[in-house]
């Protein structure tokens, strides 16, 4: 049937790769292979999604399985001449491991592929979805043949039951039980419906299956029809997936032409046909009863269950309704037996699950893994971790009905049982990874807005309740919320969960509840401090850089003055919030630039360098400090002359207080003096900024340990009315590993202090040392 080629070039023509340029790459291959007269030797196959959409267009060349990423039409001549003619691989197109930047040649050496176990996606990315012969060559329609010629319908149902397959559309209902219930209903007609509405915004496995392996769906639905006694199937596809609809239509035509769909299949006397119905953009139509109303041409409103679709479904007839991915597993199960499938996964969650990895993760795309794989393995090993050096915050799983899982639970094995315990659900398998730049309150708001828009409006709690919740969360995002609002949110959530008719309403509060559970402190920050740590909530934020700065320095303002060359004014702006421009200009971790908007264009502004420059121009800040409030003659004691204590003293002096800072050590500065090495922060810079504070009126007494040399009672007796404790929170905990007590092992801060004091240290002959903080 198919020619034997010396080499096969597989080119991904999944939706994502097409938009990254597959078509021009294909044209280039056709041209180059023709020019080099390789058409007889080398096969070119365009496939469905290979899974790693982030690095598309992807080309894989067999027999070696060499994986080329981000291939452009300009690269093709080189691939053909070097790889296909001379057998020399083109390294510059290899995939680079995100953690080590190591080049990887073969597809199956990339963790993303190596750790997968493909059953539902077995053909996706391996065959041309537009050619039924390729599906057949890969063992397609064998399961249908086996079922129709060798198995009685109850035996088919039995194998599905044994496999432990559960619905992949969200609820995880055992598929075998569903099929049996429909099979047990007397009379005809019955229907088989495939739910390809894929509503979870952030999941795309159904799309990839439809585009990459449409025949497996056709085969599975036909098997299902045979097993339950139905002769007609419907696939309900989202209108937003035009390519999926087109490929499915083509596949249906080919199957009919080949006699694999239609009348008297495999001469068994069994007839089956399938029609496509297009959705029209309503999330609630993914709910099974609403979906069937939609196929009937009505408004897609859900209805109460029971009666279940198995009894009274489409056109009031017994109906099996399954998700695309659920169906995609069926041919494998029928062909290899239910036990083969059940060997994978866990006790109650059998087989594999496809996840759509998206968001802030290096390898976005589709993965199919055995059930029970820890979430962290999916995010870090398959997903390759978080890009741009950002910090992981949470994974959103289960879409608008699901929840967020924070870092603390990354070890959780992903199963139908474990996720609900964490307040999330498996859902359809959308995994959206979020980094520190996502505001969890805003995320809750996002989902509420989604739900409030998508509620069909039939039940009041869902229609009105979600709107009220949205208003409350909106208020919190705008800095107008109160702590009582949090209680009201939880109360409303309970009511909506209990009194909604369909799954949409019943699960609508989940995103709010789960963010409240794991990220309550972010809600509280919005309410009490009017602060959004992710820098997302615009109305409580001045500028992202200022928002990120722990001292809230007005970065845009001083940069604007600096740009005009007015460094004095720039420094004045800085001193309003932060008395240490020269110091911060050297050693601040510069949180501001992590959030700089210009990073999206060419790179962040060098905020810290500007600050260093402008503050170094001047030794005496006296004229630039904000005006002091007249002295009120009230005494405040600050304990500890580190950056916190000195800053506190500074603000209080400006407010007219008489402030004395007590410092145990012989000199002031705290960690700035006793931890940061001189070459990073020259002592004269430190001295300059501290003496400026003293000139302003701050008193500093060094060598006095409060609690040892003088008691709080003594200080009170001396007239101090208020105390600020800033004695330093740093205290190292030595790790519990053998050898920590050996000579030459120092705790981090002690080591730095000794270095700062220029005391001799034993760092061993080879001077190799690590600092443990």
């Amino acid at each position: 049937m198919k020619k034997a080629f010396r080499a096969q070039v597989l080119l991904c023509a999944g939706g994502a790769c097409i938009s990254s340029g597959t078509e021009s790459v294909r044209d280039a291959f056709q041209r180059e292979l023709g020019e080099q007269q390789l058409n007889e030797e080398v096969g070119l196959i365009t496939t469905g999604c290979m899974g790693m959409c982030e690095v598309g267009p992807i080309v894989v060349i067999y027999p070696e399985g060499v994986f080329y990423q981000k291939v452009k039409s300009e690269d093709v001549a080189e691939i053909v001449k070097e790889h296909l003619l001379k057998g020399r691989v083109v390294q510059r197109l290899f995939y680079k491991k995100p953690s080590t930047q190591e080049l990887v040649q073969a597809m199956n050496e990339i963790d993303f592929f190596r750790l997968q176990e493909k059953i539902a996606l077995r053909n996706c990315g391996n065959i041309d979805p537009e050619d039924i012969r390729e599906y057949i060559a890969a063992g397609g329609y064998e399961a249908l043949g086996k079922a129709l010629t060798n198995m009685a319908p109850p035996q088919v149902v039995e194998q599905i039951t044994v496999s432990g397959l559960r619905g992949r559309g969200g609820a995880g209902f055992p598929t075998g039980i569903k099929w049996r219930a429909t099979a047990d209903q007397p009379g005809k007609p019955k229907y088989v419906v495939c739910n390809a509405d894929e509503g979870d915004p952030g999941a795309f496995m159904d799309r990839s299956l439809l585009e990459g392996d449409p025949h497996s769906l056709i085969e599975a639905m036909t098997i299902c029809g045979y097993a339950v006694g139905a002769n007609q199937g419907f696939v309900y596809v989202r209108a937003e997936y035009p390519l999926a609809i087109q490929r499915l239509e083509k596949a249906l035509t080919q199957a009919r032409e080949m006699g694999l769909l239609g009348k008297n299949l495999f001469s068994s006397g069994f007839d089956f046909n399938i029609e496509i119905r297009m959705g029209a953009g309503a999330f609630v139509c993914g709910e099974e009863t609403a979906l069937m109303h939609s196929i009937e041409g009505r408004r897609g409103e859900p209805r109460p269950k029971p009666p279940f679709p198995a009894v009274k479904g489409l056109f009031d007839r017994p109906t099996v309704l399954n998700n695309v991915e659920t169906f995609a597993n069926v041919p494998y199960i029928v062909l290899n037996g239910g036990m083969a499938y059940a060997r994978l996964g866990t006790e109650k969650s059998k087989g594999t699950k496809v996840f759509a990895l998206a968001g802030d993760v290096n390898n976005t795309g589709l993965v199919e893994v055995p059930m029970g794989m820890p979430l962290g393995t999916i995010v870090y090993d398959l997903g390759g971790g978080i890009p741009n050096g950002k910090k992981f915050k949470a994974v959103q799983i289960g879409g608008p009905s699901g929840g967020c899982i924070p870092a603390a639970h990354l070890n959780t094995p992903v199963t139908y049982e474990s996720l609900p315990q964490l307040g999330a659900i498996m859902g359809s398998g959308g995994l959206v990874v979020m980094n520190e730049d996502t505001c969890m309150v805003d995320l809750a708001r996002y989902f509420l807005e989604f739900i409030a828009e998508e509620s069909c409006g039939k039940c009041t709690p869902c229609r009105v309740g979600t709107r009220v919740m949205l208003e409350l969360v909106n208020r919190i995002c705008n800095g107008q919320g109160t702590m009582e609002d949090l209680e009201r949110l939880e109360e409303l959530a309970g009511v909506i969960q209990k009194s909604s008719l369909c799954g949409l309403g019943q699960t609508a509060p989940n995103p709010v509840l789960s963010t409240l559970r794991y990220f309550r402190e972010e809600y509280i920050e919005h309410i009490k401090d009017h602060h959004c740590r992710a820098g997302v909530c615009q109305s409580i934020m001045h500028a992202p850089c200022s928002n990120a700065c722990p001292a809230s320095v007005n970065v845009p303002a001083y940069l604007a003055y600096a740009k005009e060359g007015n460094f004095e004014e720039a420094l004045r702006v800085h001193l309003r919030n932060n008395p240490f421009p020269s110091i911060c200009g050297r050693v601040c971790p510069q949180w501001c630039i992590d959030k700089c908007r210009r990073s999206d264009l060419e790179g962040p502004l060098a905020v810290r360098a500007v600050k260093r420059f402008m503050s170094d121009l001047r030794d005496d800040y006296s004229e630039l400090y904000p005006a002091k409030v007249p002295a009120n003659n009230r005494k405040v004691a600050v304990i500890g002359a580190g950056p916190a204590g000195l800053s506190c003293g500074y603000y209080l002096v400006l407010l007219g207080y008489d402030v004395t800072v007590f410092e145990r050590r012989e000199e002031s500065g705290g960690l700035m003096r006793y931890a940061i090495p001189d070459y990073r922060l020259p002592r004269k810079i430190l001295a300059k900024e501290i003496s400026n504070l003293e000139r302003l009126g701050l008193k500093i007494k060094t060598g006095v340990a409060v609690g040892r040399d003088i008691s709080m009672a003594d200080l009170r007796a001396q007239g101090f009315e208020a105390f600020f404790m800033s004695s330093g929170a740093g205290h190292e905990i030595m790790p519990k590993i053998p050898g920590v007590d050996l000579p030459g092992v120092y705790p981090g801060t002690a080591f730095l202090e000794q270095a700062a004091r220029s005391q001799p240290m034993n760092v061993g002959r080879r001077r190799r040392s690590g600092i443990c903080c």
Partner: protein
Amino acid sequence: MTDSNTTACACEGQCNAAVWNELDEFIASHERGRNSLIQVLHKAQELFGYLPPDVHQHVADQLGLPVSEVLGVVTFYHYFSMQPRGRHTINVCMGTACYVRGAKKVLEALQEKLGIKMGETTPDRRFSITTQRCFGACGLAPVIMVNSDVHGRVTANKLTGILNQYE
């Protein structure tokens, strides 16, 4: 939109007998009645670009349904539009994956650039902006779709280059 007592349809002369014929042929090839309604509306929107009242009436008559039922269905589904659209529809994905990767900034930049809000059409009828939840191209987030072309990894900066491809 033209008001309802004029006979001209609202497509401002773009539609013609051929288009109505095509719709009628489509209807004739389908079962008469409610079951075919959504498919017919999809076809009508494809032909006319949107669904003005005279199309509701026509579809209702042809399928033998009350026009109120047609209107009920048209208003229920987001995909159906009763407003005329520009020559090119820009769909900004507001799905979760795109949202966490900055879809909101893209939408804001687009609105600013074209001077219209989501759901509106530019005065020259060149562009309309709409939003949708997920095109299933989340791997390339944030994503926008112009007509049926998917553009991935969009930033505010890249918008001009993308829009220039559509006249």
